[in-house]
């Protein structure tokens, strides 16, 4: 099918000779998208919002990463995106992508295999620019990329790498198609001899800085800071996201490569407009005031729900559901690699952790703090998910202070006069739980309840709220914490890092020293015990698997061990959040998964959303 329709604005420009006709602009092999409900009409703005600085990913989530592949709207299957199709061969070692014939960058220049080669060879693999991210390595070696022809590229890995496609579908896997060679190469020393002048003219400190300024990178605001940069996105930057701006505007990409079933070029909506507000509360006010067409990020905690629900008519919007993919919003990790030997010994007693879990009245917490939403839960995917693992999700959920006390007595922790238990060395069982109060306000609230509940057990927990950088520094770098709170919303699907099962990430706060050991290849940190090592091996293996069933089984093996060890204490199922969408905005699903790796809502294809009066 070929493109036949285009936005009226573009049609005028074609008539005026400013643009080539739509057939030429759109690739010969455009992706034909079947809109969710109906084929739409052109026109209108999509008003979203940005919260201060570092909210660039919100733009990304709407515009979409537009990598070679993407997730389908259900977050279960990977489908071609920029690539017209792909093949996986040799047991998951070789990946071949076929590009779309005649596809163009947003400035009209052709998009070919050369662009991918440029991205990989000159940037991803260029140590001067940045280290090669691990997702392009396997078996300790970087991948190899060949240009088969102008529209075909082949990626080859040393070891099988089943998760590679998922990595590419995630926002972090966009590298191969991120930069347009014809534009971005001018900022590389190997392509431009008079680069120094350019650096100076732009007040940049060096070429890397200049490059980032002009072409951006995956996760930095500067990606949306240069209207000249060609992209493959449905909308391109018009008013950029630069420091201190108060509004960001994106306008339709006239060369966008998707069409609907009637041959009309996408997107339907002309512009994406995002005012920059600093404070979440003012975002909520904007929503109530009807100034936001689509919103999910920042406004979604359940505590805002009553206000937003109340004003639905006033703001002329409806709710949609943003299902969590699994796991829990709040988990407490005791530091099992604690620097203090006594606390470390105590925390490493599994009975102690189990007792703490049994000592929590989760239902009360859910009713009080989470407005009754959610169910008691430890961690891991929900029941209806293929990765669901019963034991790790549901063990020790009951509120059973008696058992808990028995377990603690069994550890020889006698109660002192003040009712607090004593360790062998006579010190009271006291520890602090580090938490960022601004991050998720329900955490401190829940902790306050937990504090009281644990006090019944004779365990003196202190809440230690702190600012986020302090938190990171203490809990992820210097390993100074006793315990810490973090979220663990995971379903373990490819692409996600299961940090609560294996200590591979700075959010694995139960074993930061082990993580350091793992990431440094044994050079730093602390050698983990067997149970962790086994899991790490299984995890490595799972990443290579191409067969989904096999992958699930491997993950369940990991989960079996993790469940036995019971390192992390969860509270309740991740609360399904909700977003708001204007009543007149069509083709928006009533429910979508909520995840960064997905990333919400872009796989639901906002380019197919359109305005229609009721």
């Amino acid at each position, binding site marked *: 099918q070929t493109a036949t329709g285009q936005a009226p604005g573009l049609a005028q420009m074609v008539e005026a000779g400013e643009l080539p006709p739509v057939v030429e602009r759109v690739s010969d092999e455009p992706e034909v998208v079947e809109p969710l409900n109906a084929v739409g009409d052109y026109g209108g703005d999509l008003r979203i919002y940005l919260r201060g600085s570092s909210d660039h990913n919100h733009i990304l989530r709407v515009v979409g990463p537009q990598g070679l592949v993407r997730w389908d709207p259900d977050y279960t299957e990977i489908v071609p995106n920029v690539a017209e199709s792909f093949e996986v061969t040799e047991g998951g070692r070789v990946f071949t992508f076929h590009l779309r014939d005649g596809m163009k960058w947003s400035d009209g220049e052709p998009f070919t295999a050369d662009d991918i080669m440029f991205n990989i060879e000159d940037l991803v693999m260029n140590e001067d620019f940045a280290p090669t991210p691990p997702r392009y390595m396997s078996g300790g070696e970087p991948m190899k990329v060949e240009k088969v022809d102008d529209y075909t590229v082949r990626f080859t890995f040393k070891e099988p790498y089943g998760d590679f496609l998922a990595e590419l579908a995630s926002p972090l896997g966009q590298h191969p198609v991120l930069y347009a060679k014809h534009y971005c190469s001018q900022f590389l020393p190997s392509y431009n001899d008079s680069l120094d002048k350019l650096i100076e003219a732009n007040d*940049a400190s060096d070429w*890397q800085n200049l490059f980032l300024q002009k072409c951006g990178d995956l996760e930095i*605001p500067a990606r949306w800071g240069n209207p000249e940069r060609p992209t493959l996105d449905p909308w391109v930057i018009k008013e950029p996201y630069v420091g201190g701006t*108060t509004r960001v505007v994106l306008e339709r990409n006239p060369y966008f490569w998707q069409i609907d079933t009637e041959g009309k070029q996408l997107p339907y909506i002309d512009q994406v407009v995002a005012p920059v507000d600093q404070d979440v509360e*003012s975002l909520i006010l904007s929503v109530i005031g009807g100034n936001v067409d689509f919103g999910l990020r920042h406004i979604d905690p359940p505590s805002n729900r009553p206000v937003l629900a109340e004003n639905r008519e006033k703001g002329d919007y409806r709710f949609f559901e943003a299902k969590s993919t699994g796991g829990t919003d709040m988990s407490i990790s005791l530091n099992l690699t604690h620097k203090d030997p006594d606390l470390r010994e105590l925390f490493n007693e599994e009975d102690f952790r189990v007792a703490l879990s049994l000592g929590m009245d989760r239902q009360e917490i859910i009713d009080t703090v989470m407005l009754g939403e959610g169910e008691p839960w430890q961690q891991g995917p929900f029941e209806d998910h293929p990765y669901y693992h019963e034991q790790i999700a549901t063990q020790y959920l009951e509120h059973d202070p008696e058992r808990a006390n028995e377990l603690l007595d069994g550890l020889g922790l006698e109660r002192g006069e003040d009712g607090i238990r004593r360790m062998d060395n006579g010190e009271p069982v006291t520890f602090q739980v580090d938490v960022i109060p601004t991050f998720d306000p329900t955490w401190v609230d829940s902790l306050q309840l937990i504090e009281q509940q644990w006090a019944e057990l004779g365990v003196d927990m202190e809440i230690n709220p702190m600012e986020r950088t302090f938190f990171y520094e203490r809990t992820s770098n210097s390993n100074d914490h006793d315990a810490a709170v973090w979220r663990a919303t995971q379903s373990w699907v490819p692409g996600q890092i299961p940090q609560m099962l294996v200590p591979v990430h700075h959010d694995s706060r139960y074993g930061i020293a082990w993580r350091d050991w793992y990431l440094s290849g044994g050079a730093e940190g602390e050698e983990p015990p067997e149970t962790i090592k086994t899991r790490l091996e299984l995890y490595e293996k799972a990443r290579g698997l191409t067969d989904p069933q096999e992958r699930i089984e491997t993950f369940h093996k990991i989960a079996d061990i993790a469940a036995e060890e019971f390192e992390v204490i969860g509270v309740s199922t991740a609360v399904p959040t909700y977003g708001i969408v204007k009543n007149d905005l069509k083709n928006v699903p009533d429910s979508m998964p909520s995840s960064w*790796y997905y990333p919400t809502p872009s796989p639901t294809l906002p380019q197919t959303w359109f305005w229609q009066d009721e």
Partner: protein
Amino acid sequence: MLLFYIGRRVLWAIPFMFAVSLIAFALISAPPGDYLTTFAATLAQSGDVVDEARLDALRERYGFDQPFIVQYLRWIGGVLQGDFGISFEWQQPVGQLIWERMALSVTLALATLMFTWAVALPIGIYSAVRKYSIGDYFFTTIGFIGLATPNFLFALVLMYVAVVHFGSDVSGLFSSEYQDAPWSLAKVGDLLSHIWIPVIILGTSATASLVRIMRANLLDELYRPYVTTARAKGLSEFRLIMKYPVRIAINPFISTIGWAFPQLISGAVITAFVLSLPTSGPLMLQALLAQDMYLAGAFILLLCCLSIVGMLVSDILLAVIDPRIRFR
């Protein structure tokens, strides 16, 4: 003569600025971690995940692994050449980011200052002259309620009322059509039609304190013999009070300009944050929270400059207004 004095003060300001910059930089670097830690934290808060390897590489490139003094020297060296460095967050030269915002901040601060003075002086005088009258109690109470309400709360309530009950949006300093428009007369008009809200929000607490201070000082002067002298000349009560005791009671007011101005700017930060004003406050706050060192550093340095100018002005005014100080 005055020029000479100013010159001397300005010369003084140079070593002073160095001290300030060092302290400012130390303050910015004081929190643990660095820009990248914060960056990771910010993204995590929105549910996004960062690429760790990438962070480490950047850390090295930005020189965060170097000792404090090296980083400082590098920065101040650049500043001396007019190069404020690069904002890590925006990958833009700091110089590009600050000026327009600073200008708006100064405008807002000036407007607020004028508002507070315009309101506080007459009320202060009134409540001193009519001590314990109903008006005195009234203004005192209103003023203190204003003082006791955190600005950002006031801002939030105002915004809520405006949105929910009047359906209008009071945040920002410009209507959307002027937001990115080049400066024009119409844009200035638009600015004026928006600026009064933050001015009132910011001004209330400052007004209350000025009223009280004015009142207290004026009460001290009201019964001085020279006031009687002037009265015997046949001056009207109003002119009398304005010309004599007020003139002396205003002395502490003048001492305050020096810091009132910079403090208005930095005090406005949180309000500006809530109201999403395109002033320097929110950007500075973000830069600080994000540990975007060079950007924050530039703001702090500029604010310090403003304070120094403010203090200079207040010292000069003080000398002009009170000859006893001038000829000490």
